[in-house]
């Protein structure tokens, strides 16, 4: 997928003009659904905390769990391909398709396949790709990026979907009924499922102890992609591995409740290798593609690697006050919202994603919601610190000289209170130059962002520090005079 992370501010501005009221209205609805679903646990906080421990362990034991998963998946009869980067992964899949004379593939929603640009690689090599998740299908036909990681087309007006379907999938009768439109998509894609020879899906969890691949979905398209064709390709980013099946199911409980407020998604399918010889459907070959694409590099950083705990539930998007304003496009790549703000910088490098970990108020909603226990605000601060230190591993961008000088001076003053207070007195007349009636209104320069829509109180003529000293003096004087009075 094209990287537009450097256009964050422009795109955000454009998106704000659209005033996504449905996001704000939807936020309450989604929040209640999530909280209601979590309350089905006797102790929701404990359930969430347990999910965090599972994912923390999975990341801590990553290499050994991957080896265990591979061993068991291979003994189940699956094939495995390890890909260092996007190019290796997508070229391998292209080769598989060409070798098998595949004309088209059907795909389930898989963000890692967007990461590796799989669809483009296949199309370039004469293999048609059909996204089959309804939301992904719509955005594929429209040629737009996903708006939300769970509901990629949720912002597309019904009229636009109608026009799109009339143009591209032979919808005969115009209708503004989402159900009718969905039905038209069902009919169109059903034909693709029927005759498909190679199905591609992502992986929600890869279970180390049994070599099992777990997929979670509501529509049924992933089950079709896995069971109808002769070849199943399951693409996973390497952090998807979990220790045991019980762990996987606990996470699935959390995933479904956090994501859509369901106890369980309609279909949870678990694959252990290809079909047996006497089965009439199911894949004759199951090929698992494990994608690194920078993750083994990220793994070297013991703080940043925790971002890989993410189970893609999307709850952080729903709870984010910034996402709620701007929607998904501004984040500029595969992953959006807070999880995109922690992942995109690691995968693309800090230099290209400067805004992603700065366009946050550090409000902590994401952290409080996350069933994997990711501390997004701390990760944002970690990346900012990497920019200051100019860390090469994360491809940081060194902060501007003026800022570095400012903080050097700031540090001097903050540790020397007399210097600090003197600095305040020195700076005040400049700051308060434009003050009227105790308020600053029209200030340009570095702070024009604030002053465009907000006033600021002028710097106090007497700081608290000054007032305290004065109050002490007054008290001392009055104590003194009392004493003198008493004497008399």
């Amino acid at each position, binding site marked *: 997928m094209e990287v537009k992370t450097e256009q964050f501010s422009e795109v955000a501005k454009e998106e704000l003009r659209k005033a996504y009221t449905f996001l704000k209205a939807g936020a309450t609805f989604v929040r209640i659904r999530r909280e209601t679903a979590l309350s089905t646990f006797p102790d929701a906080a404990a359930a969430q905390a347990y999910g965090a421990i599972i994912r923390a362990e999975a990341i801590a034991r990553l290499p050994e769990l991957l080896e265990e998963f591979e061993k068991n998946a291979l003994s189940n009869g699956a094939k495995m391909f390890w890909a260092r980067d996007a190019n290796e992964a997508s070229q391998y899949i292209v080769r598989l398709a060409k070798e098998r004379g595949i004309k088209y593939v059907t795909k389930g929603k898989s963000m890692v396949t967007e990461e590796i640009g799989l669809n483009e690689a296949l199309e370039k090599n004469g293999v048609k790709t059909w996204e089959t998740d309804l939301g992904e299908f719509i955005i594929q036909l429209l040629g737009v990026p996903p708006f939300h990681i769970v509901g990629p087309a949720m912002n597309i007006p019904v009229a636009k979907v109608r026009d799109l379907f009339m143009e591209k999938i032979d919808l005969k009768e115009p209708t503004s009924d989402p159900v009718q439109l969905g039905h038209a998509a069902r009919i169109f894609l059903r034909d693709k499922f029927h005759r498909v020879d190679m199905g591609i899906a992502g992986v929600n969890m890869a279970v180390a102890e049994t070599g099992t691949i777990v997929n979670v979905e509501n529509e049924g398209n992933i089950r079709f992609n896995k069971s109808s064709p002769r070849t199943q390709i399951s693409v996973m980013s390497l952090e998807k591995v979990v220790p045991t099946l019980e762990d996987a199911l606990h996470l699935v409980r959390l995933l479904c409740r956090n994501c859509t407020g369901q106890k369980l998604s309609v279909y949870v399918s678990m694959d252990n*290798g290809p079909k047996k010889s006497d089965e009439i*459907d199911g894949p004759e070959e199951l090929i698992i593609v494990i994608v690194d694409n920078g993750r083994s590099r990220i793994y070297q950083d013991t703080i940043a690697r925790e971002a890989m705990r993410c189970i893609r539930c999307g709850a952080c998007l729903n709870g984010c006050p910034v996402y709620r304003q701007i929607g998904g496009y501004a984040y500029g790549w595969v992953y959006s919202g807070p999880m995109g703000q922690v992942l995109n910088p690691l995968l693309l490098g800090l230099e290209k994603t400067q805004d992603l970990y700065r366009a946050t108020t550090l409000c902590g909603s994401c952290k409080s919601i996350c069933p994997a226990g990711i501390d997004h605000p701390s990760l944002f601060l970690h990346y900012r610190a990497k920019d200051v230190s100019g860390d090469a591993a994360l491809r940081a961008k060194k902060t501007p000289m003026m800022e570095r000088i400012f903080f050097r001076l700031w540090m001097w003053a903050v540790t020397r209170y007399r210097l600090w207070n003197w600095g305040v007195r020195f700076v005040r007349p400049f700051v308060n130059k434009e003050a009227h009636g105790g308020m600053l209104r029209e200030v340009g320069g570095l702070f024009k962002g604030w002053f465009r829509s907000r006033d600021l109180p002028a710097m106090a003529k007497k700081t608290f520090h000054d007032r305290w000293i004065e109050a002490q003096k007054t008290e001392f004087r009055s104590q003194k005079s009392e004493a003198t009075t008493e004497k008399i």
Partner: protein
Amino acid sequence: MKQSARDEILNKLKAAPRKTIPSRSERPVLRELSLTPEELIETFSKNLSQEAGIVHRVKDRREALEKLSQIAKEEGLKKVIATTDDVIASLDLAAWGKENDVRVMTPQDFDSRDSFKDAVFEEADAGITGADFAVAESGTLGLIHNKDQARLTSLAPILHVAIVPVERMVAVYEQVIEKVFGEKKNLPSQFCFITGPSMTADIRGVPFKGMHGPRKVIVILVGE
């Protein structure tokens, strides 16, 4: 010699600094574990109904077939595809089909994947299956897929009817996992949890059933 991608990736991961593995607290216990068998059935039915699944409770095999006849009439079923798992096999659907003027196909009728797919995608008005488990915690069916439980039977037709003996009701997923995966070998090629009809809300958050999978799921629970 150049390292394989696999070795390169794994070696990089192994070379990274180690972090302590967090110690596990007790896995949180679920309420359903303390329910009686009757309460489990009630909970299962309630949960599945909430997801627009339809649940019928019948006493025995005979009543199950009667219920099936009723469904066939209501839904106007002409041709169905059935599995050959132990539950369905014990019902003699071939005979039932003759009595109810419904053509009952099974995967064994077809000599190839393609001809089976034609039938299940284009001809079958319904898929009739047994189920290996019914899980109360979410109104979920558990299906082990093998030659007697073809995958597409419960997925492609617009209606899925599942006939489930109540002895197969369990409280939570872990009990299923233990039975299916406990030995860690001889694993089925695929195991599925199914909770109600297929659905989506991808167009403006408007939910509807029957996106790609069945639009309707009917579960007939058999037994006292």
